[in-house]
């Protein structure tokens, strides 16, 4: 522990955790290094690629642009927190069925951005979905299938709201 370290409390994927973090530490480093939640990826580290998108207090934010100390008291949801007892969340399974994953590096970010959108707007149109993943850079899958995946999961979740 270093001199300046601070104690923070975060609800991560439904569980309150107390952590010691350096004031310089970004949320993505805390998630990946301290909590071993490596599903959240780091791409550009300056908010351009969206690979590190997570949900913070139900909103999509970039974990590389938030200091861990700023997330004190926040509810954090990462890609690991979506599954329920080994069962995939509808948005994860629709990404699979719509072939929205190729190399997979941008996928956690896309899914978390989509998840926040569906929370806020259960019935999004295609334009809204495109706007929602406009911060997520993909270099291999393309954007068609992720958009289809998010639309499909919104439909599934509307039919079975308690799913996941």
């Amino acid at each position, binding site marked *: 522990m270093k*001199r*300046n370290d*601070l104690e923070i409390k975060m609800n991560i994927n439904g569980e309150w955790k107390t952590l010691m973090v*350096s*004031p*310089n*530490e*970004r949320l993505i*480093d805390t998630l990946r290094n301290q909590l071993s939640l490596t599903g959240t*990826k*780091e*791409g*550009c*580290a*300056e*908010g*351009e*690629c*969206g*690979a590190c*998108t997570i949900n913070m207090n139900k*909103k*999509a*934010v*970039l974990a*590389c*642009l*938030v*200091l861990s*100390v*700023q997330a*004190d008291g926040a509810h954090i949801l990462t890609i690991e927190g979506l599954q329920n007892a080994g069962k995939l969340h509808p948005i994860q399974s629709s990404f699979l069925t719509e072939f929205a994953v*190729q*190399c997979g*590096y*941008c996928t956690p970010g896309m899914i978390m*951005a989509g998840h926040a959108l569906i929370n806020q707007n259960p019935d999004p149109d295609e334009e809204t979905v495109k*706007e*929602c993943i*406009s*911060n*997520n*850079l993909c*270099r*291999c899958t393309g954007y068609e299938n992720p958009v289809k995946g998010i639309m499909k999961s919104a439909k599934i979740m509307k039919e079975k709201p308690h799913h996941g």
Partner: protein
Amino acid sequence: MIKGKLYGLILQKGNPPPCLKSFQQCRGCFGWRNMIQGSLVHEAWQNNPIKCSLTGLTLKMDRLVQAKEKQTNHQRSASFLLERAPLTYYKPQTLPDAVKLLSKYETDACLISGGTDLLPLRQSGKNRLQTSHLIDISALGLSYIRKTDKDFCVGAATPVNDLIQFPEFATSPYAALIEAAKSHSTATIRNRATIGGNIVNASLCADLVPPLMALNASLVIASSRGERFIPVEFFIEGPNCSALKPDEMLIEILIPIETNSSVSGFLKLGRNQTRIDMAVVNIATRLFFRDKKCIDARIVIGAAGPRAFRAKTAETVIKKGQLNEETIHQAASAAMAESSPIDDMRASAAYRKKMVAYLVKESMNIIRERSIA
């Protein structure tokens, strides 16, 4: 852009590492920074080449990085930099506390709210934001939009997305503000990015500054000496330079409630590949009408000079004449003459000048349509 930065890194280092010779083929799914960082730092990577199954590229460093200092050099651009400077973090709970801290540390302190501009800037080193004290203003309750008799009061730490969702801004005179907010970066970043941050950064291409100038907004600035008011128009003095003194902070933006009938609009020209990019030129216009005649005009142009400015000659042209093809054309050339853009990585000065004229024309046409509707 990431690829541009990679070129920069290679130039800095002299010979490109062999593994990076074919980097143009890689689609970058792994993240360039991670690749370079990994190959420089981890010995395992240097000894065991990693093959990307998607692109068939092999990542390997033949020459082990000779000098330790190269590592540190590189680390400067990576997240390690955040660890470098010792930093004290404060989260004051009340405004007087925040102001007290600010007057104690002045230039060695930096305010943080959303952090979407600040954190990348801090990482890139070499700038005024490399302070050793960070004051988080998110607990001060500065995130609100309230309506009083005369103004809409917007807290400095209000996320840009909240502006978009505020129903009363959807009405006619405030259209420019909403359109600017919507073209500000991307939906994800706007969840954190704040209106105050966009202003105090004093970037010459800030998207929210032209509409606020067109709407006659003023700023409430707090310090240990009390509060003062300043119009947005006089707040920004030059590129990244504002009228804010080291011990002062922006707490509120006042947007006057307009009684005269006016119509406004905002246009942003950006590069198309990525929505996130800053404006090449942006423009906010607002025309006042009485009996269907234009009586006053405000044309604010951003990113085409050392700061967002009002094209006053163009305004006079519009004010005096009928709003028709001819006056619009005249106003466009006047605005073009008034602008003084620079060449940079986004566009050349000559292109920007032409685009100023185009955007003035385009936005006048939009406003003409809106005023009829």
